[in-house]
C-alpha cells in the first residue's frame, strides 16, 4: 500500500471521526406538562405523535453582538415543553470559515398542550 493511499485513508478516518463527534443533540424537556399532540403526524422518531416545530437557518452575528434571540410565535401561552438543539459538523465549519459571523441554527421545539 502506497504511503499517499495510507495518508488519504487516515485523513478520511479523521474527517469521519470529526463529523461523528461534532453531530449531537441536546434536549431540554420540561418534566411537567403534556406536549402538543399531532394526530396527523406519521413521524417514527422521538417526536412520534407530537407536534414539533423546526427551525433550520443561518443567523448573522455582528462583531458587537453578544447574543441572538429567536422569537417563537406559534406556541400558545402555555409555553414550551421541549427544545432540542443540534450541532453539526457543517455548522462548526460554517462558523469557522466565517470567523463566527455566520452560525447555523438547527432547533426543534414542542409547545405545551393547552389545558382546560
Amino acid at each position, binding site marked *: 500500500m502506497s504511503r499517499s493511499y495510507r495518508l488519504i485513508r487516515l485523513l478520511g478516518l479523521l474527517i469521519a471521526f470529526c463529523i461523528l463527534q461534532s453531530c449531537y443533540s441536546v434536549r431540554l*424537556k420540561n*418534566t*411537567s*406538562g*403534556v406536549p402538543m*399532540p399531532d*394526530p*396527523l403526524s*406519521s413521524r*417514527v*422518531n*422521538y*417526536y*412520534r*405523535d407530537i407536534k414539533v416545530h423546526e427551525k433550520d437557518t443561518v443567523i448573522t452575528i455582528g462583531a458587537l453582538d453578544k447574543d441572538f434571540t429567536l422569537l417563537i410565535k406559534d406556541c400558545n401561552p402555555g409555553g414550551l415543553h421541549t427544545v432540542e438543539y443540534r450541532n453539526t459538523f457543517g455548522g462548526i465549519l460554517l462558523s469557522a470559515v466565517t470567523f463566527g459571523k455566520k452560525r447555523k441554527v438547527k432547533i426543534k421545539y414542542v409547545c405545551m*398542550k*393547552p*389545558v*382546560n
Partner: protein
Amino acid sequence: MASTTPFPKTEWDTLHNNGPFPLKLLYVTELEGEANIPSKVDRYNDAAQEIQKLLQETLDNNEGFRAYGSRWSMSNIAHHAERMHYNGFMNIHLPIAEENLHENASYNSSNLFLFQCGNTIKRISEVLGAHGKSLKASGASNGQTIAGCVSTGVHGSALDVGAVQDYVVGINLITGPEINDIVYLERHTKPALSNTFIAQINARVIRNDKLFNAALVSLGSFGFVHGVVIEAEDRFLLKRYVRKIKKELALELAQTMDFKNSSFKIDEEFDENGKPKRPYHYKVFMNPYNNENQYVVELMYKHPYAVPYPDPFPIINKSVYRDLIHLFIKISEKFPDSIPWFIKRLKKVILPEVNEQTTGTLAEIFWDAPYQGPAFACSVGVDYKDSPKALDLLAKLAENEGPIPGIFAMRFVKKSEAILAFSKFPITCMIEIDGVLWKKSKKLMSLKQFTRRMIEVLKQNDVPFTIHWGKNSDWGFSGLVEHMYGENAQTWKNIRSAFLTEKMAKLFSNDFLDATGLSQLQQNVDEDLIASLT
C-alpha cells in the same frame, strides 16, 4: 362551538407501529375556547353535542365509528376501518364540589374529579397534584388517555389497588345522536353524583352495578366515553428499590404474596412489629434465554407525602439509538440464535440498575416513556398462585420454539369488579413479554404464531388465564373469550345488547370485537339489565 376537522385518510397505525390498518376518515375535535364559553360545564356539554353530530353523520353514511386517544394499545382494539375520532384535545376537568355529591354518597368530595376522555394520565396527575391528591395507581407510564386506560384495563403492579378502571366511580357515555343518548352510569350500591349535577351535564342517570361493571372495561363499544369520575387519594410517596434475589425466592413471593413472613427484607421497610412491610408494587424481571439463578425484582413501598425528598428524575435521560435496535432485529430475523446473545448485551438498557433506589410521587416514578421504535407486547393474566408454573411454561415455549426478541416480566394486580377485566383473579399476575417487533422469517416464527402457541400451551396445561385487551395476541383464536371469561362473556354481551340500539351497537363495533365474537347482538335480552336501581 367545539369544532371537528375531518381528514380523509388511507391508513392508521398504533403508537408502536403494530399496523398499519386501513382507514377512510379521521375526525379531530377541538374544544371551544374559554373566552367564548367560560363555563367548563357548558364547554363539556358543547363538546357532547359535537360528538352527537359526528355520530349522526356516521349513521347517515351507514359506517362505523371508533374513538381513540394516545393509540397506545398494540392490538387493533382502537381501530375502525371507516371512521375514527381523535379525542386527545378533549381535556376538560372538573373537581366535584360537596354540593354535587349524591345524598347517599360514601365518597369524600375532595377526592372526586370528572375528567373528559382526552386527559392523559400525566395531565390528570398534575391536576390532582395541584389539589394535594394522586391517582391510586397507573400503568408503567403516563401517556395514555383516561378513556383508553379504563376501556382496555390498563394496570400497574399495585398488589392491593387494582387497575385504572378500579377507581372510576362514574362513566359518562354518549350512545347516539338523540337527546336521551347522553347517559351517566354509576353503581347503585355506591352512588357518587347528585341528580342535579348529572342533569347539568345533560345526562340521564342509570345506577346499576352490573351495567356499570360491564361498561367499565367496555373495549370502546358501549358508546363514546365522554368522561369519567375518578376517586383520587391523598398524595403519597413511593420508595422504589431494585434488587437481585434468588430465583426461588422471587417466585415464592409471586406465588404466595406473603412478604411479611418471607426471608426477603429491605432494611428500611419494616412494620411496627419488626416484620417486613407488604410492598405497594412488586415486579419480577426474567430473561428466558439464560439460566441465571437470580432474578431482578423491583419493589415499591408507600409512604406519606413529605418534602423534601431526593430528586427522582435522572439528570440525563438517554435513549438507545433506534438504528442499533433495528439492526439487532434484522440480524435476528436471519440468525435467531443471536437473540439470546443480543438480549444479554442489551441487559443494561432493558433491566433497571440493581440496587437502584428512588423516591417520588406516583406521577414521578411512572413518568414519560418516549417512543423507542416499533414494539410488541404480549401479556397474559393468571392467578398469582399459578404464576411460577405459567412463567415456566411460557419461558420454555420461548426457549424451545422461539427465540423471540423480548424479555419477560411479572406484575401483580388486585381483582377488578369489571365484568371483562383481565385482572379477574384475587390477585392477577400479569406475565408480560415486551420487545421489538420482528418479521417472520424461515427460522423465526411470527408474533401471531407465538401468541397462538401461548394460548395453546396454557390451555393444554390447564392454567386459567386472561389476555390484556390492548396487547398483541391471536385475538381470533376460536372460543378464546368464552374460555377466558366463561359466563361473564355472555353477561357482557347481553348487557351491551340491552344498552345499545342495534344500529348503534353496529356503529360502535369493530374488527377486534368481531374477531373476539363480542360484537354479537343478543336477542330478547332482559331490559331490567339496564334498569336504574335507585
